[in-house]
């Protein structure tokens, strides 16, 4: 009886050939820095931590002073500290920001070597725009999703040093595919549109046009258009009430990072 079950498990598990590692993994492997002991990774992490501690304190003080000295609630929010990010839309500055305060957002300097920071602040209203660094077309080489404690992450990676423009805003169905005009169904309870301009996914991006991660907040990411320099993705979220995000950029390779706040299973 037991032998039967064991044989059945062995047979069934090995019946079908499985896919090999995706190209993105090979690329990632080949892109690891040459020397593990003095790797850029480790250097980046310790460097960030030290620089973060030192600069966060200094910048936070300045930040608080500046915010206080300005009339009205116009320059709050994480957008102000990110250099290339402009925050627009109704009450964007006064957006409710959860636990992470101005201090943590200030620890993300707009320098090229910025690494991912686990603590950041989110904007929950209006829209955010990242300006393009090209007037032609920035080819998209990779789109990835990931989850981290407190937030889910979407990454757009570009093939060269040029970065496309990105506009993030709340969106509402139905979603229409650019060009064809077909309606695209997206599961989820709340949506963000991620519109890239001066961008193209063809022919550089060969990955999926649909991700359905079962992350705490991000449940789907769908490509609804790649047409005349506009590339549009819709991010579908689980949580109707918490649509808070933060946009930042990274270099080497050039990336745009959208972090979506995720409060976990019990938002209340």
């Amino acid at each position: 009886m037991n032998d039967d079950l064991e044989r059945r498990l062995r047979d069934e598990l090995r019946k079908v050939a499985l896919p090999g590692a995706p190209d993105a993994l090979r690329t990632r492997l080949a892109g690891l820095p040459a020397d593990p002991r003095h790797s850029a990774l480790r250097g980046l992490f310790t460097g960030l931590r030290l620089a973060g501690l030192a600069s966060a304190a200094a910048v936070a003080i300045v930040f608080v002073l500046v915010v206080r000295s300005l009339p009205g609630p116009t320059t709050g929010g994480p957008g102000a500290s990110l250099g290339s990010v402009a925050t627009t839309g109704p009450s964007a500055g006064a957006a409710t920001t959860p636990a992470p305060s101005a201090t943590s957002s200030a620890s993300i300097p707009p320098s090229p070597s910025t690494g991912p920071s686990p603590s950041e602040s989110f904007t929950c209203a209006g829209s955010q725009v990242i300006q393009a660094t090209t007037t032609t077309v920035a080819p998209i080489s990779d789109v990835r999703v990931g989850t981290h404690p407190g937030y889910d992450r979407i990454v757009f990676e570009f093939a060269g040093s040029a970065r496309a423009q990105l506009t993030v805003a709340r969106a509402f169905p139905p979603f229409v595919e650019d060009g064809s005009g077909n309606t695209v169904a997206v599961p989820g309870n709340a949506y963000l549109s991620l519109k890239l301009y001066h961008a193209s996914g063809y022919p550089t991006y060969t990955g999926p046009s649909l991700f359905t991660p079962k992350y705490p907040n991000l449940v789907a990411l769908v490509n609804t258009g790649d047409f005349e320099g506009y590339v549009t993705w819709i991010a579908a979220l689980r949580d109707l009430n918490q649509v808070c995000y933060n946009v930042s950029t990274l270099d080497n390779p050039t990336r745009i990072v959208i972090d979506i706040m995720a409060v976990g299973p019990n938002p209340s």
Partner: protein
Amino acid sequence: MILSRVAPTLERREGELGSTAAGDAGDRFLRLANGELDRAYRLAGMLLGDQHEAEDATQDALVRAWKSAGSLRDPAGFQPWFDRILVNICRDRLRRRRRIAFVPIEPDPDDAGLGQGLSAGRNLVLTAQGDPFQAILDRDLAVRAMAGLNPDERIVLTLHYWADLTLEGVAERLGWPVGTVKSRLHHGLNEIRRVLEREPDGGSR
């Protein structure tokens, strides 16, 4: 085919590095990891039942392994060493998944305004079910029951029956005594048998 695309990168790196000790260690890691990558990705896929999660987990394992590449003394021990890192990451993911207890998002007929995008969402869900790992895990009742075990038992059974490792090999990758592996295996099989018995057709194929 895929290998040939990576090869130039590795060659270039050899040229750049010359024969420094650190360069050799890094180069050795890249070669070994490159040879192990398909298997590692498949193992993660079988443990997690999701190709995207498998990719994330393998990538996490690569970075973590890379940072501690100095701790690998014997190149012949690369597979168990890397497996151990990968299995740990997969176990964390399985446990977290369990805690979070995902609520399936389904169309809510009362919420017409916001549910508009949901009505035809079935197509997309079908696409997601095209996941090659989930397909295998869904096909047979016994395998489905295996995937429903607790993370530790699922890992033991996958390593033993899919990866074809001996109980000693499984123990090495989990850092457990062989006796613990045996008891988990036994318990897992009993659990599956219980599921099969509950089925009206006795779980026969």
